[in-house]
């Protein structure tokens, strides 16, 4: 059985977050960005890995439509034992769940998978659109909000999906199809720190795809236009005095803002290998009691 899992990394919401007023985007408050795999995607991944173990000869391939540097979810998948991971990049600049779905659907149109597993919704956008849209774009059957897989074999998926007030619905779906999973569908397996570290070193394959929204049946999406960040404040920079002779001004700029004559008195330029430089720097700091 060939299983595809679609994952995304999201900001770790256990750290303080803020909404940037001008753009409406969420960012970490003052600290560095810390990302993790979207929890329901994690469940989707775990379900696929379990299915792989139950059906010998199966493969789990993990995909993420994300920018370079947003591969945390893919590393997570590698560490848990995904057979392959791939980062998908579009040729345009379209953002938002419909385009993510279009990109993923384009990928799956080229290569057939028996079951495409997605998270039910993401922590950030919460649109819950990507999974269903992939199914629509590929003309596959779909089941959303799966909480438990009862059986998956012989071209069929038997699963429980969540309804209101804790009720469950038992659904049977023909494969190939798309399923989206709730967080409670599976607990992630434990992996050692060593494996996590090894996964980080894995080179992630990138595939670029052409997507043409005009030729697909995509719904409108209010967030599809990229937000414009606020106008950055001007940081004061070294500016030579306008009354200095032009040749002096050019010399200052060529010297990177340092006037050569003055610099020889108040500063020194050191050259050499890093060991030597760090030694000298340390001595300087110690000498002037900075450290």
């Amino acid at each position, binding site marked *: 059985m060939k299983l595809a899992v679609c994952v995304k990394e999201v900001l770790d919401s256990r750290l303080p977050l803020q909404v940037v007023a001008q753009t409406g985007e969420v960012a970490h408050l003052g600290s560095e*960005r810390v*990302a993790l795999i979207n929890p329901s995607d994690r469940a989707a991944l775990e379900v696929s890995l379990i299915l792989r173990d139950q059906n010998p000869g199966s493969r789990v391939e993990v995909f993420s439509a994300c*920018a*370079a*540097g*947003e591969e945390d979810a893919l590393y997570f998948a590698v560490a848990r034992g995904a057979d392959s991971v791939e980062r998908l*990049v579009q040729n*345009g*600049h379209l953002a938002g769940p419909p385009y993510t779905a279009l990109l993923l659907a384009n990928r799956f149109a080229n290569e057939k998978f028996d079951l495409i597993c997605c998270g039910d919704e993401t922590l950030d956008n919460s649109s819950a659109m990507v999974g269903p849209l992939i199914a629509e774009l590929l003309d596959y059957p779909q089941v959303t909000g799966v909480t438990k897989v009862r059986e998956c074999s012989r071209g069929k998926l038997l699963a429980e999906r969540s309804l209101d007030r804790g009720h469950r619905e038992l659904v049977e779906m023909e494969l190939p199809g798309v399923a989206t999973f709730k967080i409670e569908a599976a607990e992630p397996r434990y992996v050692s720190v060593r494996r996590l570290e090894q996964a980080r070193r894995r080179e992630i394959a*990138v595939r*670029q795809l052409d997507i043409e929204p005009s030729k697909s049946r995509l719904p409108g999406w209010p967030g599809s*236009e*990229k*937000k*414009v*960040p606020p*106008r*950055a*404040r*001007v*940081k004061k*920079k*070294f*500016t030579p005095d*306008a*009354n200095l*002779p*032009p*040749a002096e*001004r*050019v*010399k200052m*700029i*060529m010297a*990177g803002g340092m006037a*050569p004559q003055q610099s020889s008195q108040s500063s020194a330029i050191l050259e050499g290998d890093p060991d030597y430089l760090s030694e000298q720097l340390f001595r300087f700091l110690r000498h002037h009691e900075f450290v």
Partner: protein
Amino acid sequence: MPNQFELLFSPLQIRNKTVKNRIVSTAHVTVFTEDGMPAERERRYYVEKAKGGAGMLIGFGSSSVHPTSPALDWRVVEMFDDRVIPYLQRFSESMHEYGALVLAQITHRGRRGHSNLSWQRLLGPSRVKEPNHREVPGVLKREDIDMIVQAFAEAAMRVKKGGFDGVELSAAHCHLIDQFWGPHINFRNDEFGGDLAHRMRFGFAVIERVREAVGDDFIVGIRITGDDFVEGGLNNDIMCEIAQRISEHGMIDYFNVIGGSGETLPAEAACVPSMNFPLACFSYLSGRIREVVREPVIAVGRINDPVVAERVLQEGQGDLVAMTRALIADPYLPLKAREGRLDEIRQCMGYNEGCIDRQYRGIPIGCVQNPVIGYEAEWSDLPKAEKIKKVVVVGGGPAGMEAARIARLRGHHVVLYEKSDCLGGQLNIAKLAPKRTDFDGVARWLEIQLRKQGVEICLGVGASVETVLAQKPDVVVVATGAVPLVPPIPGLAECPYAISAWDVLLGKTPPGKRVLVIDDQGGMESTGAAEFLLDEQREVEIITPHYSVGEDLGPTNKPPVYTRLNAKGAKMLATWELRGVENGTVRLRNYYGGNETERTQVDVLVYSYGGRSVDDLANALEGKVAELYNVGDSYAPRSLHHAVIEAHKYARQI
């Protein structure tokens, strides 16, 4: 790192249009036009930039709005002729296909240039010649001014009819609009001269008439300098005042801020800062302008990679970044940056000899690193070879590496031999000269590519005929480079204190205070070596048979080099050649008069006569392999540009 380029790849609204990212290719002369029209070669050159993902493309460095504006010296676009409209339409359609905004720069150069090509008389605000071109203009009469203002509006309309998104008025490089602004150029006593408000009247007349002609749904930007670096000229304080007034006037949609001016040679060199300048060296100018205007500002000047660009944006020095030369070196920089493939970006090193310094000489631009520039129609695609061959490349300099790269990309099996323990060849010497470190980037990029693509690299192997033939190659590319040429001048070869400029840079100079540098090569070799020795606190005199030291240095390289040589106390003597050396005395002869003189008590004699080809292997392999190419300096010692283009050209034939 996530969101590494948060601002760089965010859109920006300019009037009625949205630019998809902040990367701009600014207007520049290409010398690709045909009969004054932006034909196929120009279009193909820009298509690559559009494909590569740049947000905004400003075309046609200073296209002429009127026949009185000099246009033939750099073969700029003749925007005063309706013939141009179909060319513009085809051009803009191609750019829009890839989602780029496309604008055209229009200008009148006024007194800047020569009238000896078109025999159209030069016109300026006053009878003051430009120090750079030194031709005295006639004074614009009232009716001439009206005529030129009208010509601006008509040219802007042609751009609009050509399907462009906007037009950029050039008021930089000391063209007519900023000639009117300049208190040192404009001595008129009518309403167009006097105080700043009057001096700005011509520019405002142009802006108003252009806006009236093109209407509200069309971008009109302006290119200004932030500081012209000219005595008594438009310094940063005055330019902030001018920009503020233009902003308050409210008809301009963006400001494009350069440093320098075309007026004097040092200021002209600053306009397109070469590797003699730090990165993003003029962002402080755009930053200061940006503080006083409301409209978006383009930061310009040696912004050569996306990391620097993002920093300029984050620090508020601009809303957009001009990466013109960076996009010449690698038109696909935006795509590669967005996908996080930073090490694949071929970084502009600011050498300038391939692009702007050719343009200033009126010959078509190229790039010393990117051979495809100007040959997009022929070379932008690299088809796979029909028959896969075994290729042996000997020599790991730029020619050998480029040949290996192209051969490998075409699917051949490539083995590269390099005698020394690192790749780079002469680049490893060139980069040792003061302010020449950026040469290192050329070899770095090529090496990364070779290793990524799987070229087998054998370092420390001086390949002989046997080594090469043992590989049973189908093709051999010899790129064994050159060594310094020692001409048969009496006493030179035997002289113990004579040393080549190359060896100077490698730190092999014998001790001694008094240094004589003979500059016959005319490029960076001798000036670099001289500066290297000046930094060692030696006394240096440079002597050349040419009209000037560093005769062949390009117009953007010579002034900074001269500035530093002067500051470091170099003496220079032109039109004298070396005749002989004996016991600390160096005999010189005047190249024109034939009379002789001498220099006594010389401790070190540095000579720079260019290279001598190392072609033994190429000669020995003749007739022993099916396909043999000798490329770069081992064929004939020339420039980096020659080496890269030649290697590229022949590697495509393999």
